[in-house]
């Protein structure tokens, strides 16, 4: 069953709103513009591919239509990336970042660096903004769709209730949350400054804080869905979940730092310190991602 033009227009509008909401801080960040000027194209290709994989994962596990086939998920991800490129281009141009004296490489690199976070924002916005109480949205059509349409081997997983998001799904969503949050501060000079000036003990403190945040957000907070999604029965599960979330956050942080060239020419200690400093943002994003980003599925 096809959606009406009005429905899909609304969906794109939500996506664009989400893209701007989550990535405007980055579009307004000077270091991001400069990252576009200095990044090497091979690294940028990697960035695009990783973003695409994240979009695939997010759309698969937290997307609007959870009975979507792989082809639909792949198509949605391409659309989100396309919207991201368009939104980034328009905003950068309006901000006077794309000028006539720049070479093609400068313009394209700058747009691509920004567009990838916009694309994740579009994805989150499409799935999360205003899903509730909307008769036209996903669910109705899910029922219209004949069940035997899904001849993938994922069938069993799909038909399971929405709150049974698989462990893999939770990891993917945590990763998306971590990237979305950490990317907002990763390119700034402040991360390096904090990393260089903090004593190892304080860095350890940041690390402990990240873990505590993880525990709080995943278990004791009043966040919608906290008890439902995180099977946190027992202290062991709480600890395990918090450690896994933090591990995802550290992984996301180090990937982003590497991409922005923050590891180039730094000693191992400073690289680790930067990862820990950024890991606080990553851990918040990952924990919140596991809860907030999948709230849409709770309805």
């Amino acid at each position, binding site marked *: 069953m096809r959606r009406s033009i009005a429905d899909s227009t609304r969906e794109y509008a939500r996506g664009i709103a989400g893209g701007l909401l989550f990535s405007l801080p980055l579009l307004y960040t000077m270091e991001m513009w400069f990252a576009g000027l200095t990044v090497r194209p091979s690294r940028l290709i990697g960035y*695009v591919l990783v973003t695409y994989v994240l979009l695939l994962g997010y759309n698969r596990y937290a997307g609007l239509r959870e009975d979507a086939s792989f082809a639909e998920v792949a198509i949605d991800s391409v659309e989100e*990336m396309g919207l991201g490129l368009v939104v980034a281009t328009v905003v950068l141009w309006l901000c006077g970042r794309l000028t006539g*004296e720049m070479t093609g490489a400068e313009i*394209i690199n700058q747009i691509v660096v920004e567009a990838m976070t916009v694309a994740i924002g579009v994805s989150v916005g499409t799935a999360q903004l205003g899903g509730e109480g909307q008769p036209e949205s996903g669910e109705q059509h899910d029922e219209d769709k004949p069940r035997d349409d899904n001849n993938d081997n994922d069938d069993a997983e799909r038909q399971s209730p929405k709150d049974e998001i698989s462990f893999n799904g939770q990891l993917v969503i945590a990763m998306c949350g971590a990237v979305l949050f950490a990317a907002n501060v990763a390119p700034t000079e402040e991360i390096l400054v904090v990393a260089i000036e903090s004593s190892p003990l304080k860095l350890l403190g940041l690390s402990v804080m990240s873990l505590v945040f993880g525990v709080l957000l995943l278990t004791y907070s009043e966040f919608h869905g906290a008890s439902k999604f995180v099977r946190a029965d027992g202290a062991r599960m709480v600890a395990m979940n918090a450690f896994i979330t933090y591990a995802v956050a550290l992984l996301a942080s180090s990937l982003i730092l590497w991409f922005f060239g923050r590891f180039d020419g730094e000693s191992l200690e400073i690289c680790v310190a930067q990862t820990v400093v950024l890991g606080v943002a990553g851990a918040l994003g990952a924990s919140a991602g596991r809860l907030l980003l999948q709230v849409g599925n709770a309805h």
Partner: protein
Amino acid sequence: MSAVKKNILEWIVFAVSLILVMGVIGYLSYDAATLGNNPPDIQVRLGASEQRTKRFVIPVTVKNAGDETAEGVRVEVKLKLDGADAETGELEFPFVPRGGQREGFVAFNSDPNAGRLETRVLGYEKP
């Protein structure tokens, strides 16, 4: 693909997105494949001097012919009158990306046409 049901608007958005994404990846791949490893190579070119209120300005164009971006490029322009250093102008460009160029001006009190100009790249950083 037969299971994918989309309306005309969604197909258009998808088609445009696909072209954009493929275009970007294609361009980046081409760029990556053709990019060498030469360090920044800054070339300075001076334009004709122009008279402004109480001073003369000379347009300075720096071009980076290398494969890496140069950061904080400092350029010095010396005005020599009768063989002696008369005035020195200096300016800095925050970024000169590979293959890119930036423009600026140096100002002198004396007429540069009366003497000789010498340019020098003082230095730059790797980003």
